């Protein structure tokens, strides 16, 4: 779901209501003004060069009509203003601090961190975040390079991520589901391909995901997977990516622990299938020109093993 018209949270709902009101009233005004103008245009036609000098009385009447119209405009605007302020206050109220998720915008992907008092259980992932349904979730937003903007239309308005600033906002997802979001502030070459997903689950399922996601991997027993892991560590992947429980702990690119549990590759650009992954590794620049990831020219043997390994990281 990725639309202002399908609100999935009280915030989005309130804003949608506000807008529908403005849409109704505004639309009426638009049609009204147009009709009046058209009526004047098609009934008051005539030829002849003489000037029209309406008598003083009629002129005063016309001026009264204009002032009345102005007055009505002011009333309507005042109405909008009051309604908007009330909505604004409702949205500004901060709840008791719930779950907090740190989001950092990179060119062109989202780094997601679930803080935990126990550092070993601190969870780092990318481009896909899970939240519990019906609970306020707080987001802390930072930017690593340029300005990005965090926006999931079905859940809430957008917030800019600005270098040197830390901004935060919160919402409560009241319907379970997968919500799509996308960077809304122009951030360079691949601004168009910088999406993310917010998965809203009932508490138990969320807990289960959190538990699974904060576990670090054991060395795979299966020889193919083991080979794949060696390829990952040897052929440069580990220079930028990290996988918990292995020697790879670089932070240049997205964290790939539990990569297989994500639904997309490259910030929502490709669905996460082994075919797409192969394509992506061989030449990312075709899929997402300008992305930081270089082409990794591997032979079919190591490549399949690597893909198998990555797809095994549930």
């Amino acid at each position, binding site marked *: 779901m990725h639309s202002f018209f399908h609100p999935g949270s009280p915030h989005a709902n309130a804003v949608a209501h506000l807008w529908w009101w403005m849409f109704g009233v505004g639309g009426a005004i638009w049609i009204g003004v147009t009709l009046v103008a058209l009526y004047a245009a098609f009934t008051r036609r005539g030829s002849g060069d003489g000037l029209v000098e309406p008598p003083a009385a009629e002129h005063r009447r016309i001026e009264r009509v204009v002032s009345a119209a102005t007055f009505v405009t002011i009333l309507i605007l005042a109405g909008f203003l009051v309604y908007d302020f009330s909505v604004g206050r409702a949205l500004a109220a901060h709840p008791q601090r719930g779950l907090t998720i740190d989001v950092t915008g990179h060119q062109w992907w989202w780094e997601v961190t679930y803080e935990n008092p126990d550092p070993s259980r601190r969870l780092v992932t990318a481009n896909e975040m899970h939240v519990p349904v019906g609970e306020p979730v707080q987001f802390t937003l930072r930017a690593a390079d340029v300005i990005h903007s965090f926006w999931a239309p079905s859940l809430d308005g957008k917030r800019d991520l600005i270098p040197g600033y830390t901004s935060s906002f919160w919402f409560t997802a009241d319907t379970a589901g997968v919500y799509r979001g996308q960077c809304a502030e122009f951030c360079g070459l691949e601004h168009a391909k910088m999406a993310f997903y917010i998965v809203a689950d009932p508490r138990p399922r969320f807990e289960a995901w959190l538990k699974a996601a904060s576990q670090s991997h054991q060395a795979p027993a299966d020889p193919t997977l083991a080979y794949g892991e060696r390829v990952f560590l040897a052929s*440069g992947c580990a*220079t930028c990516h990290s996988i918990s429980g292995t020697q790879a702990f670089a932070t240049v690119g997205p964290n790939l622990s539990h990569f297989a549990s994500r639904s997309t590759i490259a910030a929502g650009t490709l669905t996460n299938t082994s075919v797409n992954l192969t394509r992506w590794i061989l030449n990312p620049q*075709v899929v997402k*020109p*300008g992305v*930081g990831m*270089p*082409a990794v*020219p591997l032979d079919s043997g190591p490549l399949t093993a690597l893909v198998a390994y990555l797809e095994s990281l549930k």
Partner: protein
Amino acid sequence: MPSVARAYRYVVVATVFATAAACEREERRLNEPPLSTPGAFVPQSPLQPGPTLVADTTEGPFDDNAYGTAEGQKLFGQMNCSGCHANGGGNMGPALMDDQWIYGSTPNQIFASIAEGRPNGMPSWRYRLTNQQIWQLVAYVRSLSGLTPKGARPARDDHMMIKPAPNQTPNAKPKNAGLPGASQRP
């Protein structure tokens, strides 16, 4: 009037040149076949004595490309080159901003230093970075000491300033200390 016509012709010619230069400098080479390693760099036999000697070339593929050099600048930070080279100032590793070059200052020699690694701690990046990335690093490293065209050098970096921006450093003539260039080899 003929004089005006001639003036126009000069303008056109100048524009063409500007265009050519600018294209070289401004290109974003996003999706091109991976660049090769310099011919002389690929070891001919396992029995090669001493450090690899590399044929001199005057220019690396990204030397006059602003975008490539900037990518090199990013890699320099991401690969933590500063850990030893301290933003080019030199610390555990040699300084990169001065005109002293232990293993030579030509693109191929720097490529070799990065790709193969060097004694006393410089690791080999051959299997960590693609040739394209190494060439971008070469361009950046050369820009630090003013060996690349000024127009393509990166300006201020959005971090604490430990060094002057490359586009502020004067064009330099390297003293190729240590390793002799291929030209002087017997």
